[in-house]
């Protein structure tokens, strides 16, 4: 710990942990010199485009390619028939199911990939998709998941009709994917039977799409002579892509190079392996030339991974003072046409069982059933860790509903049920060990900052005048940093993370990680961790990620895992280097290791001022003067398998005013306090919070993927899928407390997803609160002006006086 002014100066020069260092990534982005996938141009490159199904459910009677092939510039048209001999017409999903790469006899969702066209330019490829003639026989579509298990429901997946297991346990109907249960059914039942109060609520978390500004795409380049495949790809998990591509294609992993260059946002959308990638790779292998495939926005929203679509029922048992006695949750999960959910393979409902939240709940039981419908496959965490958003929404809504039922303030009901600050690590009824927390302090700080009591007074006055003002409150706990490999794997690969650090003779550093930034600025923040751990300036530390030929194997960036797992690997690898450096320093200073103290950027001999070696001097010595028996060089690798998840938390408060005649909501105030443990770069943390809150605002206030009864997707452009602009987006106020994670080497917990997870129920809480005095306890999202107006109208509040 630096204390003297001189030490603090040296520490500041490092720009290490805690410094709001400007981003290393910015100079290239502000000058148009980023390198995104669509910027990649290889010699001889050609373009792929997709023929897609207009039907949600249909049998393919015939496909006629002749006219398309006759168009000058068209090089190939591939269908499932062409991929069959290569056994590439189906691919495994991360959830144990299979997904059609190109529709095999049937289509199962609108816009499904039916054929791929390859042509010399993207205009010709687009023209040719219109010339491929596909004859369909339309079949009845299954859109409503509540009807999926009916005896007379149309059977969707003929390919797995006979199977009693599609990768996630026994199933009871051809449209059923899995049942997953956790917790104690009997004690929960008896808690509900004997409780003084029970509240129950159905709620729908609609299907939404992460829609990063850059769509998905790739450039595949197969070198026939060397037998090597290079793929530039928009992937949040390039190493997993390499493994999947190797398994699919039979090409050795060592001959496949996956490069995630700059990525224009991910938010979960870029975790999966999509038919477009696979067909571009196949086309490159077949044609021997590089092939580019880039989705347009309609394709992005319609076919690559969406999130949520959870139909939930929550039940809370409590006593009349509001103390919770038990929680039961039943969920019907609409997984679409193929179960290609991206999540740890053994967890069909992800980490949903974190749904006991920040509260000390003695018993709980959760059951989730997944079903097939004629909708696009996928299902990812949209800026959250695998269903944590759904879990937090459920428990935070239930807390409000219980508060209303008992006429207790929503802050007070939370205080009465919080896990106490001295009870950590705390084992939840559903089996998680929450590492650390201080929920009371966070809540108190927020209520103080916004003058909660005054807000309540103002609201009472407004209500008496017939105005609609709502106060939303949420005290959430997240679970991130997947995860301990004993609990989490992806296709059998444990969810560790990796870092490889090399210190050069002059003290500059290159480090490579298995994660990949999609905007989080890893090049900036990982360097800060190394700077603090090694006492070398951030400025001289180069971070590289995303190239599987150079980076160590890692599971990638999603589920807020970069800091909790990748950051831990970085710190541990750096500590290995420092341990070696200490030995070298002892050798140079001719003392024993134990006589040395670490001081910001150097080792000092205890009690002998001036006897010291800086890290730079040690780096030089590592290449020419090391102790006997030690190998030269100064580098280390760490594959970090976390002992536990991390549990960031926060307290959010939102104030809304609703226009009684239009239903429009004005977010007057949004105060977000986050505790993500140790803060590595406060500027970047705040930026992540702004972004997460804005995405939460989008989800709560307008995003949804609506399907009609035939399975037509009714909103798949930026015209009708809500992306808030500068104008709608509220002004955000941020705050923090610091409760370090006890098991993370730096005490850091991860932050980027908390604001998304926490803000969504906060908006709902505020909107419902505006109507709470009229007996309203819940309203489903999205809270668009029209839907809010419907509630106003139903309550008769829009009558002009």
């Amino acid at each position, binding site marked *: 710990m630096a204390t003297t002014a001189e030490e603090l100066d040296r520490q500041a020069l490092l720009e290490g942990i805690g410094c709001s260092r400007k981003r290393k990534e910015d100079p290239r982005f502000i000058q148009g010199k980023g390198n995104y996938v669509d910027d990649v141009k290889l010699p001889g490159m050609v373009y792929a485009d997709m023929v897609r199904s207009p039907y949600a459910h249909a049998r393919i009677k015939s496909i006629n390619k002749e006219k398309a092939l006759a168009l000058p510039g068209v090089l190939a048209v591939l269908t499932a028939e062409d991929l069959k001999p290569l056994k590439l017409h189906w691919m495994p999903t991360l959830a144990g199911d299979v997904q059609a790469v190109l529709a095999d006899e049937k289509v199962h969702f609108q816009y499904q990939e039916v054929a791929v066209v390859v042509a010399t330019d993207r205009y010709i490829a687009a023209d040719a998709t219109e010339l491929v003639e596909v004859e369909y026989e339309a079949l009845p579509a299954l859109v409503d998941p509540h009807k999926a298990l009916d005896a007379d429901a149309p059977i969707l997946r003929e390919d797995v009709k006979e199977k009693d297991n599609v990768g996630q346990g026994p199933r009871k109907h051809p449209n059923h994917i899995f049942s997953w249960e956790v917790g104690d059914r009997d004690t929960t039942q008896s808690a509900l039977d004997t409780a003084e109060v029970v509240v129950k609520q159905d709620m729908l978390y609609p299907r939404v799409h992460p829609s990063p500004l850059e769509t998905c795409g790739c450039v595949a380049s197969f070198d026939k002579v060397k037998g090597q495949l290079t793929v530039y790809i928009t992937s949040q998990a390039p190493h997993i892509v390499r493994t999947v591509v190797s398994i699919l294609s039979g090409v050795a992993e060592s001959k496949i190079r996956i490069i995630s260059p700059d990525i224009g946002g991910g938010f979960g959308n870029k975790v999966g392996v999509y038919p477009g990638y696979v067909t571009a790779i196949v086309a490159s292998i077949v044609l021997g030339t590089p092939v580019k495939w880039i989705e347009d926005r309609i394709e992005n929203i319609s076919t690559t991974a969406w999130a949520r679509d959870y139909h939930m029922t929550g039940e809370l048992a409590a006593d009349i003072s509001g103390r919770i006695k038990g929680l039961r949750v039943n969920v019907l999960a609409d997984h679409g046409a193929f179960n290609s959910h991206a999540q740890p393979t053994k967890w069909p409902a992800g980490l949903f069982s974190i749904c006991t939240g920040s509260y000390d709940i003695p018993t709980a039981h959760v059951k989730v059933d997944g079903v097939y419908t004629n909708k696009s496959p996928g299902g990812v965490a949209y800026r959250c860790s695998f269903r944590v958003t759904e879990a937090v929404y459920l428990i935070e809504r239930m807390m409000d509903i219980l508060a209303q039922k008992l006429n207790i303030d929503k802050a007070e009901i939370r205080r009465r049920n919080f896990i106490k600050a001295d009870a950590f690590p705390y084992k939840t009824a559903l089996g998680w060990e929450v590492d650390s927390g201080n929920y009371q302090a966070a809540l108190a700080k927020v209520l103080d900052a916004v003058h909660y009591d005054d807000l309540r007074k103002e609201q009472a006055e407004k209500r008496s005048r017939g105005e609609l003002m709502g106060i939303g409150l949420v005290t959430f706990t997240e679970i991130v940093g997947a995860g301990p490999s004993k609990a989490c794997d992806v296709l059998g690969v444990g969810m560790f993370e990796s870092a490889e650090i090399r210190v050069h003779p002059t003290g500059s550093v290159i480090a490579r990680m298995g994660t990949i930034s999609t905007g989080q600025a890893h090049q900036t923040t990982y360097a800060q961790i190394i700077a603090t751990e090694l006492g070398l300036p951030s400025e001289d530390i180069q971070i590289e990620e995303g190239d599987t030929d150079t980076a160590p194997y890692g599971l990638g960036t999603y589920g807020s895992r970069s800091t909790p797992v990748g950051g831990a690997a970085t710190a541990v690898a750096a500590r290995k280097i420092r341990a070696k450096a200490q030995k070298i320093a002892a050798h140079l200073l001719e003392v024993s290791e134990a006589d040395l103290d670490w001081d910001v950027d150097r080792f000092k001999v205890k009690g002998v001022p001036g006897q010291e070696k800086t890290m730079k001097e040690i780096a030089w010595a590592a290449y020419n003067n090391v102790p006997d028996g030690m190998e030269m060089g100064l580098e280390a690798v760490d594959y970090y398998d976390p002992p536990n998840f991390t549990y960031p938390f926060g307290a959010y408060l939102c104030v809304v005013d609703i226009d009684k005649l239009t239903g429009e909501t004005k977010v007057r105030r949004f105060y977000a306090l986050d505790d993500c443990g140790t803060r590595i770069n406060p500027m*970047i943390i705040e*930026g992540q919070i702004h972004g997460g809150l804005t995405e939460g605002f989008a989800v709560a206030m307008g995003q949804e993927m609506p399907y009609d009864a035939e399975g037509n997707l009714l909103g798949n452009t930026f015209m009708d899928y809500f992306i808030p602009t500068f*104008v709608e987006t509220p002004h955000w106020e941020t705050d923090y407390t610091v409760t370090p994670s006890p098991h993370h080497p730096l005490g850091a917990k991860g932050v980027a997803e908390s604001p998304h997870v926490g803000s969504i129920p906060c908006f709902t809480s505020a909107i419902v609160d505006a109507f709470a005095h009229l007996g309203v306890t819940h309203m489903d999202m999205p809270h668009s002006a029209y839907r809010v107006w419907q509630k106003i109208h139903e309550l008769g509040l829009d009558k002009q006086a």
Partner: protein
Amino acid sequence: MAKKLIAFKLNNQPVEVLIEARELLVHVLREQLAQTGTHIGCETSHCGACTVDFNGESVKSCTVLAIQANGGEVLTVEGLAQNGTLHPLQEAFMQDHGLQCGFCTPGMLMRSFRFLQENPDPTEEEIRSGMAGNLCRCTGYQNIVKAVKSAAAKMQPA
């Protein structure tokens, strides 16, 4: 398809390029003229990632035919820095953390470049409405507003 030769000024340099009549300006900039700073986020004129300055106005280059540029002047993000010196907006975006993934950034810069000429001393609200045609999925806009405001202050004649 018959090709046509067009000529225009790109970032103050004359360029000539052979195009098809149906080609969009954004594709010609990116693919023929290798100026990949201008991005495509939707191709339906909603996101503004493709915003460039054309004859003194902001346009979404996914909705402009390249042939319309014939004889005109186009400025892209690559032309914003002058003689190796960053534009004050570029500086401000860095200082105020106005970008994350960077995909919207060229469009944001080009729109704010024109906006500050239309309104050199804007309020926060004016910035928000003047930039509303540009979407960002990462930043939540707040720091972009801050950056545009601080650049405006720096650009004020002393």
